[in-house]
C-alpha cells in the first residue's frame, strides 16, 4: 500500500498524521481511544471532561436520510463525559503512557474561571499533549456551559485566560456554528491566549417530527429537545466558517483543526486545502467505525502522489485565494451545456429540471427521447448537468456577453464538479 508521509506540525505539536477523533462519544474511555490509535488515527481528542457529570437521556440519537441514504445528517443529545473526572484523568494518563507517539488532546469544560483553570492544571499533570476548550456543546443542561458560552466573546476570552493560568499546554478553542460570524469569538479566544481554533461543533437542530405523536426526534418520554446536528450535511457549513476565519486578517495565522461531516479522504483534503492542519471526525466513525481512517491514509497518500505533494503542509490553504466575494466573480460570459448524445439514455430528467427549476431551455424530442439545448433561452446555469444520472452533460460553447471586458480567445478555465 502506498503510504506518504502524512506527518504535520500543529500548534507546535508533531502529529504522525492529521486524523483525530473529535471530542465525542467515539473517544469516551481508554479502550475506545486505544483501539482507534491502533487502527491508525494520529491522535484523539478525549471526550470532554469536567466537574459536571452528565446524566443522559435514552434514546439520544436520530439520523436524517434521503432516498436510500441514511445518516445524511445525525443528531446527538449527549453532553460531556459520563465517567468520573478521576477515571477520565487516569485514562488520559494511561493513553499517553501506552501511546507516546500519538497525540492525546484533553477536551475540557468548566462552569467558571476557577473550574477551567483547575481542569487545565489537572490534564497537564496527567500527561495530555494539548487542551481543547469546549465552548460549543449545544445540548448542555446548564447554561453556564456549552454553546451559550461560545456565543459570548467576553466569556470565551476570560475562560481561555483561565486555562492558560492552569497550564502552558498548547490550547485550542472549539467554536460553535450557532451564530452568524465565527471570527468574533475566535478572535476573543486568540486574545485570551488560545494557540488555535477547532471548528465546527454541532449545529442546533430538530431533525424531524413524529407525525403520530407530534414530537421531535428522538422521543424521550413523549418530548424532545433541540440538540447538535452533524454528518455530511454540515460539511459545507463547516467549510464556510473555516474560510471565513482564515480570510480574517486577525485570524489568518491561527492554526485550525477542521471538523464537520468528514467521511472520506476527499473531505479531509478539502478541509486541508481550506487551511486546516488537523482533521477531527465523529459521525462517520459512529456509523462505520474507526477503520475508516485506513482509507483516509491510503486515499490521501494517492492524492498527494498524484499531485506531487511530498509534505502535507504544502497542501494547507491552497484553495483559500480561490474563494472570493461574489462581486468579484467574472460575470462576462455564458457557457452552454453540451450533451453527449451517445451517452444520453433519454431519461428526460434534465428536461424536467430545466423547465421546472431553470429556464425552459432543454428541448425534448418526444418520439426519439432525445434532448437538445435552446441557446436563446439557456442562461448557462448547468442545473441539467447537476441532475444528469449518467453525467453526459459537460461544458460546451462559450458566449461572451456584449459590453463586457472579455474578448474571444480569453482563456477561461472550465471544470465540472465531479459529482460527489
Amino acid at each position: 500500500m502506498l503510504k506518504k508521509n502524512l506527518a504535520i506540525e500543529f500548534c507546535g505539536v508533531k502529529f504522525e498524521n492529521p486524523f483525530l477523533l473529535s471530542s465525542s462519544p467515539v473517544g469516551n474511555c481508554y479502550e475506545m481511544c486505544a483501539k482507534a490509535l491502533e487502527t491508525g488515527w494520529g491522535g484523539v481528542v478525549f471526550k470532554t471532561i469536567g466537574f459536571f457529570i452528565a446524566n443522559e437521556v435514552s434514546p439520544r440519537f436520530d439520523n436524517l436520510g434521503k432516498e436510500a441514504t441514511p445518516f445524511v445528517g445525525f443528531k446527538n443529545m449527549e453532553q460531556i463525559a459520563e465517567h468520573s473526572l478521576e477515571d477520565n484523568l487516569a485514562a488520559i494518563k494511561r493513553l499517553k503512557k501506552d501511546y507516546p507517539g500519538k497525540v492525546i488532546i484533553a477536551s475540557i469544560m468548566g462552569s467558571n474561571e476557577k473550574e477551567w483553570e483547575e481542569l487545565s492544571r489537572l490534564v497537564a499533570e496527567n500527561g495530555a499533549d494539548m487542551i481543547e476548550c469546549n465552548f460549543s456543546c449545544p445540548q448542555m443542561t446548564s447554561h453556564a456551559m456549552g454553546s451559550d458560552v461560545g456565543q459570548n466573546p467576553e466569556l470565551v476570552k476570560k475562560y481561555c485566560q483561565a486555562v492558560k493560568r492552569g497550564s502552558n499546554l498548547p490550547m485550542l478553542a472549539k467554536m460553535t456554528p450557532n451564530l452568524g460570524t465565527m471570527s468574533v469569538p475566535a478572535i476573543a479566544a486568540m486574545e485570551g491566549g488560545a494557540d488555535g481554533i477547532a471548528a465546527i461543533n454541532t449545529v442546533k437542530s430538530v431533525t424531524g417530527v413524529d407525525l403520530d405523536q407530534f414530537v421531535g426526534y428522538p422521543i424521550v418520554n413523549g418530548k424532545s429537545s433541540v440538540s447538535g446536528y452533524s454528518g455530511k450535511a454540515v460539511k459545507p457549513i463547516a467549510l464556510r466558517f473555516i474560510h471565513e476565519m482564515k480570510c480574517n486578517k486577525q485570524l489568518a495565522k491561527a492554526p485550525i483543526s477542521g471538523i464537520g461531516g468528514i467521511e472520506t479522504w476527499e473531505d479531509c483534503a478539502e478541509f486541508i486545502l481550506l487551511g486546516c492542519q488537523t482533521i477531527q471526525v465523529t459521525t462517520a466513525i459512529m456509523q462505520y467505525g474507526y477503520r475508516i481512517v485506513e482509507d483516509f491514509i491510503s486515499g490521501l497518500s494517492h492524492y498527494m502522489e498524484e499531485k506531487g505533494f511530498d509534505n502535507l503542509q504544502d497542501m494547507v490553504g491552497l484553495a483559500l485565494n480561490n474563494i472570493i466575494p461574489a462581486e468579484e466573480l467574472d460575470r462576462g460570459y455564458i457557457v452552454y451545456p453540451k450533451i453527449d448524445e451517445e451517452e444520453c439514455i433519454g431519461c428526460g430528467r434534465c428536461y424536467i429540471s430545466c423547465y421546472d427549476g431553470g429556464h425552459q431551455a432543454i428541448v425534448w424530442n418526444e418520439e426519439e427521447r432525445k434532448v437538445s439545448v435552446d441557446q436563446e433561452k439557456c442562461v448557462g446555469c448547468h442545473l441539467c448537468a447537476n441532475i444528469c444520472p449518467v453525467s453526459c452533460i459537460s461544458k460546451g460553447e462559450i458566449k461572451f456577453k456584449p459590453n463586457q471586458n472579455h474578448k474571444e480567445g480569453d482563456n477561461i478555465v472550465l471544470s465540472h464538479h465531479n459529482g460527489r
Partner: protein
Amino acid sequence: MEDKKLEMDSIFTPLLAIEEAARCLLCHDAPCSKACPAQTDPAKFIRSLRFRNLMGAVETIRENNPLGGICARVCPTEKYCEGACSRCGIDRPIQIAKLQAYLTEYEKTVGMNVLKKVEIDKEKVAIIGGGPAGIVAAAALASKGYDVTVFEKREKCGGWMTYGIPELRLATKVVESEIAMTRNLGVQFVNNCEFGKDETLVSLKGKGFKAILFATGYSEPKTLPMFERSTKVQTAVEFLGQAKQGSIKNIEKDILIIGGGDVAMDVAMTAKGLGSENIKVVAIETLAEFPASKKELEHARSNNISIFDGFKPVNFDGKTVVFESLVDATKIEIEPSKIILAIGQKDGIAKHLSEITKNDKGNIATNEYQTNLEGVFAAGDIIEGDKTVVYAIKTGKEAAIAIDSYLGGRR
C-alpha cells in the same frame, strides 16, 4: 452473435460501481473475505470504493493477486465470496466479481503500476507451466527477489485461460495484460519448451536452478475407449483451443457434447456462437448434483441448449451414440455430426518424472508443496485435482511461500 450476453461482458460505469458498493452492508468480519481461496479481500476493496478511494481498492486486489482481473471474470463466485455475502439474506449478493472487474479496468485506465519490480538477487527458480498456478508463483517469487524462469510448452502462456476458457468469458487481452504484470517483475518466459523433451530435471539443475516447481495443470483430456477411433470425436480441450485461436471456420450443425461441467457449458456456448444449430449436452450427473456453476448452466439453458442429465454412454457404432439412464431403463439414441468429449482432464507430467511419488488418488504427492524429489515442488491441478483458476492461484501462492522457506532455510 445472438446469444444473450453474459453479465460479465459489461463493465460497471463509475456511478453503478459506487451504487453497487453502497449496497454492501460493510459487514464486520466479512464472510466474503473469508470465502476466497486466493485470499482476496472484497470487504476491504468494496469499502475503499464506498469511501471513494479507488486507488487503494485497486491495491487491495492487485497486491494479493497478479491475476485479479482474470479471477473477476472466471471465478465461480457463487461458490465463494458472493455465495457467502450477507446480503444474500436480504435480496441478492453484492456483485463482487463485477466490482473487481471494474476496479482492475480502472487500474488500466489510470495506468497504475501496483506490482513493483525488486532487485533480483536470489536463487534461480524454474517453473514448469505458464498457467495460473505457475504465473502466480512466479510473481510471488520474483517479488521476493528470486530469478524466476517460466518454461511453457505452448506458444503462449496462460494455459487453460488462454487455450480453454472462451473469449466471450475471458478476453485474450485481459490475460495478456495480466501476464505482462508478472513479466514486468523480471520473470523470464521460455515458450515452446516442453518438459521431458526440451528440458529435464538434470538439464535444469545443470543450468543452476535451485528449485523447480511443476504447475503443468491437467493438460491431457480424458477419453472413453468407445470413442477413440472415430474422426467425428474431438476433445473439449482441442475444440476450445481451436475456437479461441480462431481456427474453426465451419462448424457442424448437430453437435453432441458429453459432460456436465463448466467446460461442457463453455463448449456448448462456443459451438452455438460459431453457428451450430442443434446442440445437445448429455451428462452422467443429474441436475441436482450438476458440476457446472449455476450461472453457466442457466446461461446455456437460456440459449436453448438441450441438456440431458443422468445418462451414461453405453455404445457407439461410429454413427449413433446410445445412452442409458442411471435412474430408470430409459435409453436415448443420438446421431450427431460431431461429438465433443468434456469429461475432464488428467495430469500429463508425471510420466516424465519416473521417480516421483504419487498419492492414492494418482496425483503427485506433496507435503507443503514439496515432492519426494529434492528441490522439486508441485502446485495447481496436478496436486489438487480438477479445480478452478482460483484454486490454482491459491496453490501457486502457497507453493511460492514453501519455495522461499526452502531456499531461505539454506542461507
